[in-house]
């Protein structure tokens, strides 16, 4: 791999950019791999990357039925934060956020991590108590957050109307080192680093079946032939249930649509990420100037990557009240993704009833922020059979009632 650097740009400028090589190649499937990762989204690619980097396992294939980073990795609102209530969540999300800090250098690929600060607005008395509790929990967990008052909110985000008629802003949970990153670049950066370690990234390759022998995985059937493997990591988000069924087990997951939209680009007016969970909308401004807006999920199961219009209406209504200046903005694009939601709104990183199959799913509406940490923990789980970061996220926790309940703590927006 040719390293990207200022020197490389200068060198290529002198030879008409003829020296750049492909960031990752088009691989043909080999008959056997040590580990097959299904799903070339952020989480899948990060899993493969840390398998190679931390454990020296490089005979790895990443299979993708569509194109790389074309699912939820390319459809989210790119928010990165780790201000969760429960200890296991704070551990894995903070690991992830801290990996984001140095990810560009680590991958030699600019993921444009921008720790601009994330605030979650408290607009009811209940939310004030909830977020103060979270701030205290975060202090114990070593996650730097603070509860700030309405005046400080206004200073940090002057375009916000803090005296709304129905839901005035009463304070906010502020994480100064939260922020955003370029979502595509995260997938591309991991893919380039994986390819550089000799891993095969095989796109347009759908897994149609899972081969097992005596309760142990032996390989997968794909649209491009059978491929053998010793271990199989399923990292397919919205389609986790469908793939698990092919392997003969069930997951406590439901798949629903989540939508987002962006406005026309405008001049810089907002340099923080704001999440308003009571009125249900969140917004940040991209480097291109577009306002990036997200809201809530649909209420019913759906695999079509399109959601209901009234959820968009609800989100926009909330934001117009909170940020009056967006009232006359035109929206450019709107899209949906299929998110995999668990009963306690926390992910599943777990062994499965089939030996050699590991599953990473259930990130629901908040997976992007977790990509590096999830990959880091999943790689350890696959390589060693357990990881301190994933122990609590077993799929069996529902049977034992050991929930990691973030559905109340984190509100609705993850």
């Amino acid at each position, binding site marked *: 791999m040719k390293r990207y650097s200022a020197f490389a740009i200068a060198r290529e400028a002198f030879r008409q950019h003829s020296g750049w090589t492909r960031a990752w190649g088009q691989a043909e499937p080999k008959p056997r791999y040590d580990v097959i990762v299904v799903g070339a989204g952020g989480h899948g690619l990060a899993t493969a990357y840390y398998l190679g980097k931390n454990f020296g396992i490089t005979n790895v294939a990443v299979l993708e039925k569509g194109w790389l980073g074309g699912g939820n990795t390319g459809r989210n609102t790119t928010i990165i934060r780790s201000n969760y209530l429960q200890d296991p969540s704070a551990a894995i999300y903070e690991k992830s956020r801290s990996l984001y800090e140095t990810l560009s250098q680590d991958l030699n690929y600019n993921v444009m991590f921008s720790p601009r600060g994330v605030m979650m607005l408290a607009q009811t008395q209940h939310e004030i108590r909830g977020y103060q509790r979270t701030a205290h929990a975060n202090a114990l967990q070593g996650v730097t957050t603070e509860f700030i008052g309405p005046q400080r909110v206004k200073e940090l985000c002057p375009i916000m109307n803090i005296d709304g008629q129905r839901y005035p802003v009463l304070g906010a949970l502020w994480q100064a080192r939260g922020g955003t990153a370029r979502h595509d670049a995260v997938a591309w950066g991991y893919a380039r680093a994986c390819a550089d370690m000799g891993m095969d990234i095989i796109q347009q390759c759908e897994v149609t079946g899972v081969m097992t022998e005596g309760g142990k995985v032996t390989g997968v059937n794909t649209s491009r032939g059978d491929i053998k493997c010793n271990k199989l990591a399923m990292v397919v988000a919205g*389609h986790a*249930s*469908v793939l698990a069924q092919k392997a003969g087990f*069930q*997951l*406590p*997951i*439901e*798949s629903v649509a989540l939508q987002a939209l962006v406005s026309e680009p405008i001049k810089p007016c907002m340099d923080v990420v704001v999440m308003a969970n009571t009125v249900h909308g969140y917004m940040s401004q991209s480097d291109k100037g577009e306002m990036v807006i997200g809201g809530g999920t*649909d*209420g*019913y*199961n*759906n*695999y*079509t990557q*399109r959601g*209901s*219009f*009234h959820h968009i209406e609800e989100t926009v209504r909330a934001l117009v009240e909170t940020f009056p200046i967006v009232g006359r903005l035109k929206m450019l694009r709107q899209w949906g993704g299929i998110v995999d939601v*668990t*009963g306690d709104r926390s992910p599943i990183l777990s062994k499965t009833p089939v030996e050699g199959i590991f599953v990473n799913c259930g990130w629901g509406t908040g997976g992007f922020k977790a990509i590096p940490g999830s990959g880091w923990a999943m790689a350890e789980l696959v390589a060693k059979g357990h990881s301190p970061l994933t122990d609590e996220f077993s799929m069996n926790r*529902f*049977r*034992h009632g050991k929930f990691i309940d973030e559905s109340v703590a984190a509100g609705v927006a993850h």
Partner: protein
Amino acid sequence: MLILHCPHCDRMVDETDLHAGGEAHLKRYGPGSEAEVFENYLFMRANPKGVHFERWRHVYGCGKWFLAARNTATLEVYGTYAAQTTEPPQAIRDAISEKQPGWRWGTFQ
């Protein structure tokens, strides 16, 4: 916009008047049941890509529950029926079979 027929009001209702209630035809278990049974009943929801049976409530209307047969891969609605039943009526099954021959959902087909 999802539009369903409310079998109680006998009219088409759009989803803003409805509340989705999750998987239909659940078998309920009470105190004293095994942990696995509770896990299945409370958390292991059917999540098919295809034919699905769901509970819906006409919240901003008659307030009553009904069940719907829907396709989660195409958003097609096969029909709705009253909730006072433990299995989908034959007419609904026939309507699904017409579009999706060989369909299967739990023990129904």
